[in-house]
Structures are given as C-alpha cells and as structure tokens.
C-alpha cells in the first residue's frame, strides 16, 4: 500500500503569520488545481479538525478556499496573544508544523 501523503508533501507553501495580534493565519498553496482539489475534496481539513489540532475554539476557526491561486486559507485565534508573557512566537510565523503533518488520504 502506498504511504499516504502529508499536507506538506502536497503543498508548495505552508506558512503561518499573525493576522493582527489576536489571530494566526495559515496559507497553504498547491502546485495546481488537481492537487488543490484532492485536498479540498478529501474533507480532512474541517473547522472541527483544526480546532482540535491547535486546541482552539471551533467557533473562531475559519477555513476559506481561495481557488484563484489554488490555496487554502485557515485562521485560528491565538492561545496566547502576541507578546503575552507565555507567548513563544511573537510574529506567529512558526505555527505551521502541526498543519504540515496532517495526513491527506
């Protein structure tokens, strides 16, 4: 049986960044429409799944398909506001790894 790919194996870009100090937003870009649609139609990446993966409130998770550049836009609230005493990533630019490792069947 072929090993199922991780999101990072399918994507050309998986990045995270602050969208203001209260949210982190992820851009996942794919090389072409067919790969993008494989991920889109796999239905793995749901608000519920992302909420559990990052330990955040599901009501605050947003997932948007940005078809024009074969990309996914995911936004989650920060568990710690940027620069809070317990924050570990002020720019929010190193939060992508759990997302990168999601298996896409």
């Amino acid at each position, binding site marked *: 049986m072929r090993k199922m790919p991780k999101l990072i194996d399918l994507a050309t870009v998986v990045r995270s*960044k*602050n969208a203001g*100090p*209260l949210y982190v937003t992820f851009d996942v870009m794919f090389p072409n429409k067919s790969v993008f649609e494989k991920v889109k139609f796999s239905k793995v990446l749901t608000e519920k799944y992302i909420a559990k993966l990052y330990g955040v409130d599901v009501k605050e998770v947003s997932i948007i398909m940005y078809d024009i550049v074969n990309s996914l836009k995911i936004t989650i609230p*920060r568990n710690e506001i940027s*620069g809070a*005493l317990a924050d570990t990533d002020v720019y929010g630019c190193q939060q992508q*790894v759990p997302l990168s490792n999601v298996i896409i069947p």
Partner: protein
Amino acid sequence: MKIIALNGLLGYGYAAESLENVKGMKIDYIGVDAGSTDPGPHYLGNGTSFTDRNAVKRDIELALVYALNKKIPFVIGSAGGSGGKVHVEWVKNIIEEIAAGNKLNFKMAIIQSEVTKEYVRGKLRAGKIREMGPGLPLTEEVIDKCDRIVTQIGIGPFMKALESDADVILAGRSCDTAIYAAPAIKAGMDMGLAFHMAKIMECGSMCSEPMTASDIMTATIEKDSFTLEPANPIRRCTIDRVAAHTMYEQGNPYFIYEPDGVIDLKESKYEQISDRAVRVSNSKFIEAKEKTLKLEAAMLAGYRTISIAGINDPLTIKNIDLVFDTVKKFVVENMKDKIAPEDYLITLRKYGEPLPGMPIPELPTNNMGVILDVVAKTQEKANTICALARARMLHTDYPGRKSTAGNLAFPYSPSDIYCGPVYTFGMYHLAVVDDLCETSSISFVKVGA
C-alpha cells in the same frame, strides 16, 4: 497615476539600483510604510522603534533628496514603527538631520493620531468599542494601564495633507493601505482598485519573485485597473504572487476591511500583461455603515532578566522538569522575606524537545537550549531572581546524576541579560467614530535653513 512603495517597511532597505530605475519614470507619489504590530507590544509601550536609526536614515535619505528635487510628494505612514507622538518625533529628528546634511529646505505636514485615555473611556461608556477577537476584553482598568494609545488612521487625514503644499507628509499610526490609496482616491480613482492596489504594494516587493520586503514596487492606477511592476529588473510580478499576496497577513482573502468600508475581491481579475507586470481590475468598494478606527495600546507588565544556556547531558535533559521544579521551590523559599512570589514570574523555556503531537525522533535530542525567563515588578527584582535561579539550576542535583560539576553550558559571560521593561497588548479594538478624522490632527513645519 504612478505610485511607488520604497519597501515593505521603512528601515528594511531597498536596492539603490531600483531607485535609479524609477528615476526614468514619471512618478506622482513616493510612499513608505514604517509600521507594524508584528514585532509585538514592546515598541508601542516603550516609545522606541523596532527598526534601526541608521537604516531608517539611509532609506529616507536616498529617496527624499530625489523626491524634493523632482517635487514628488514623499509620504511616511506609521512613523517610528508604532506611530505614537514619540515615534513621529524620532523620525522627524532623522529627517531634520538629513535636511541639514544635504542643505534641503521644505515644508512638512505632520499628522498625529494618538488619543487620550478619556477619549477611549468615552467610547467604552457609550458602547462604541468593538472587539477584534477573543482574549482581549477592554475595561476601564485596562484603559488606565495603557500609557500611549494610537489609532490607525485611514485615507482622510492623508487626503487633507495632500491638499496642502507640503513636500513631505509624516504621519503617526496609519492603516498601511491609507498611505497608497489616499493619493489615488484624491485623484479620482476607483476606491476598490485604490485600496486593493495599496494592500498589495504596502509590503514592497513581497508580491514579486524573488520575493522580498526590502525592495521598491511600482503601481500605475488608471480608471478601471491598476498594474504592479517591481522596480528591480531581477524581480517579476506574477498572477500567483500578486493574488497570493492579497491574502497575506489577513484572515479572509476575499475582503479587505478599511475604516471607510470593505473591499470585495470576489470578482477581481488578474492578468499577466508582460513578463514582469500584472494588471488587476474589478475590485469593489462597499462603504461601511458604521465607520471605525482601530485602537492600539500596550501595558507595562514588568521587567525581564533572562539567562540562556545549553544542556548536553542526556541525564540532565531527562530530569529537566525535576531540576526546574527544585529551582523554583528554592527561589521562593530563599527570598520569602525579601521578594513576594506574586512579584515575579519565573519560566523555563525549553528548546529542542519534540513538539506536542509530533513524532518523537528515533535519536533523542542530545542538546537542549533553555532560557531562564524572569519577569518581575522591578528590574532589580528580576535581576535578583534570575541570578539566584541560574546559580541554583547550575548545581541542582537529581537522582542518578553523574555530571556533578554543573548542569548548564553558558555560551556567554555574563550569563544574565537585562531586557528592561516588558509590555503586553492592552488594546487592539475598533472604536466607532462619527468622523474618520476625529482622532488626528495636522500641523505644518518648515524643515531646513
């Protein structure tokens, strides 16, 4: 109308060659964004810049001399990074130094956008504060703790300043987009296109390949489209990069929220019109029913002292939590009559451990980085707690220990670093306003002899 963005952030640099290239064009406006909340709350709270003075001076000097010579308006938004009065003053001082050094004379408009605690308290009591997300409720107690409150102004104050005969406009905290959208809208261009153009170009050459925030972007806006083309011939704009940059640093790729309204990008069209240029059309502006301005402020949270060390011994790494627990208990006990435990927070930040949920590597890490992180009510208390904890941690015993001479490999002497005041965000909210210019004021100064 041709507008150029010097770079994505004043002080991040740009190629001098790129500036030489634009000198051959007919330029109507030179802008540069100097601000961001990305570096965290410290700089707003502390009244300092996250960019370096010499780097900021270099970026302004090259372009300012050219702009004045050609009578092109030169506009800086979010001066000094956080855009408070003290930050504006910092950049004003740099500009005066450049003027003196180059024997320049000109008129400068200064736009301030700080507000008082009373202003925010009034908004809160009138129910005119809107939260931007979870985790940061605004209360009167928070307002009291915030020393410097800035508002992100929109296009209004910039358009007013552009009506004057000022050669240079230096503005406090501003929406990044306002810097570039204002001249286009003042010239009668479509607001949807003007804001969309501004949103993409405010990061300099981030929408090109190779991608960088440290280079010049040019934009030409016409009646029904705008075109982006990097000033540096080594870069090119592509549809993918331009469209992808539209979604950068914001939660929704289809809508850009501005004080004046929202830009709907659902029907936007992107065309590759040459090897290096992309044309965009069909972006729509929808006026907001409720006009809002974003408030930003930081609160003092204490003073920090840290100590950085490596740990190479696998047994010490295995026992690290036990070691730190011993250290914390010792510090509390040792200082109980001198420094109350509620006056400080002591944290061990560990680097090199597998992340939660991540697979454990086959070869366990044999090198861990740790930061002993102390935030206390005063710098002196932070220094005391950190020094005590660092010394205790160096020599903490644990079961089975064989490396009994020391637990920490310090890369530096001195081992303790005094970081100064620590701030946290107090405000990141929207205030409903009657007039989008109500938080700003414009004054004019003569610069140079």
